[in-house]
């Protein structure tokens, strides 16, 4: 049996002892080659979950196996084959795009780094601003650079936090196509936290709906639409977020 990209068991995070957990008893298995979505309103626990999956945050309980490595004891072996992109974490803004990619090529031990950087510059159309400081780029350009950085090591597991936030529809569509191509070409697994329901419907084979730190529903986008009797995932999201889920299902 193939090692799953992520095996998550009973993952729980409580920031303050005695307080309500930010994430509670999260359990799921993300197979290789699939993209899953992590949906939920603000404060639902998406960012906390992603931080625990990346080893940035120590869970209060439960465990994460990423690419077969226990993130509590062997996280660096997993991190070399993972990557992450978020519009909320910047790259050094005084370094040029090329320099940023070179830094991360070294950090991830990318073989033939210059060739890989050239490939990414070509694939993400970064050429016209490759020698410009990252801080001088537009939001769309920054997102492309962040994605190029996230793919520098050809990760087997990619975690994405709102990868198309603040992008115009054209650039957003381009990002989604790029992610689809990458998953198909490399057989990588992706976990995507997003508020863009169209994006989730398009990219994700399965969706975990989070509310108050717990998974309140899960399934493929089509199964959820059928279950809630809705035409699009946004309506399902609103049903769950506003506590209309039971009524809608009934």
């Amino acid at each position, binding site marked *: 049996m193939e090692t799953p990209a992520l095996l998550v068991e009973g993952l729980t995070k409580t*920031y303050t002892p005695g307080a309500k957990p930010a994430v509670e008893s999260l359990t799921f298995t993300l197979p290789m080659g699939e993209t899953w979505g992590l949906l939920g309103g603000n404060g639902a626990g998406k*960012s*906390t979950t992603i*931080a625990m999956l*990346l*080893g*940035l*945050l*120590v869970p209060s309980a439960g465990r994460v196996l990423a690419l077969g490595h226990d993130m509590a004891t062997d996280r*660096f072996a997993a*991190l*070399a084959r*993972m*990557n*992450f992109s*978020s519009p909320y*974490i*910047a*790259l*050094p*803004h*005084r*370094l*040029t795009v090329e*320099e940023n990619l*070179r*830094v*991360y*090529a*070294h*950090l*991830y*031990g990318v073989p033939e780094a210059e060739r890989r950087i050239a490939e990414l510059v070509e694939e993400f159309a970064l050429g016209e601003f490759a020698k410009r400081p990252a801080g001088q780029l537009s939001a769309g350009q920054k997102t492309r650079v962040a994605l190029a*950085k996230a793919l520098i090591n050809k990760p087997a597991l990619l975690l994405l936090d709102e990868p198309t936030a603040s992008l115009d529809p054209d650039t957003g569509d381009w990002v989604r196509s790029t992610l689809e191509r990458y998953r198909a070409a490399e057989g990588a697994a992706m976990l995507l936290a997003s508020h863009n329901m169209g994006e989730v419907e398009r990219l994700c084979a399965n969706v975990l709906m989070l509310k108050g730190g717990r998974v309140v529903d899960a399934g493929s986008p089509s199964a959820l639409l059928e279950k809630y009797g809705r035409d699009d995932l946004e309506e399902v999201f609103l049903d769950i977020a506003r506590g209309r889920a039971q009524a809608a299902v009934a």
Partner: protein
Amino acid sequence: MAGSSARRIWGLMYRHLALYRRSWPRVLELMYWPVLQMVVWGFVTAYLAFGAPGGTARELPGNAATIAAGVLLGGVLLWEVTLRSQMGFAISFLEEVWSRNLGHLFVSPLRPWELVAGLAVMSVLRTLAGVGPAMVLAFLLYGFGVWTLGPVLLVFLAALMAMGWAVALAVTALILRHGAGAEALAWGVTFGLAPFAAVFYPVAVLPAWLQPVALSIPAAHVFEGMRAALIEGRIAWDHLAWAVVLDGIWLAVAAWIFLAQFHSARVRGALLNIGE
């Protein structure tokens, strides 16, 4: 594995060196304070030791004046090594905080000790770039060559740099704990140690109750050793040994504090938003 570590450390160094390669004001800034300090203290020393030109000469014999000048200028230059070592380390870390890049660094395979090693090497380079020109100028302007201390100078420099790293590790731990709000410490904390580090005067000058405090600072032993070399022409092995032992203790304690705060930051979830 060792090769991978070296490459990751180089990656971190490249991130900083790329900035200096393109920005001459940044390179100039490295030299600015050490050179300025040395020039000011050089003139103060010349005045104290030799008197003002045209004025009354001091009652110091020529050799004593030269030694006094060496003790003061040697103190200035060697203390700058500690300062620049500490600042070079802590400010390289702050660059990551300011650019909100820590999240990316800590989800890469970069180990905490590799981060520390990268910052330490950057601190060596920044110190060389800052204090090296000041040392050359001290020779050209005032005829004081710090290298006249002999090979023991290398041990002095290593001991002072190690103390700078220990202080910087503790400062970095405080930044991990309190965020960018603790950044003022990166600039000023070592200045606060200067009165007790016996930079310009022997430990014996301090009040008796303060002397144990001074003797627990590695730099105090280095400066006692420097004075022994310049005034008595001998190597104070006891002070050298104390400096090395105390550096080991300071580094071990600072590393423990750093690792404890790093773990605490991972428990609190502070690594993602530490720049805020």
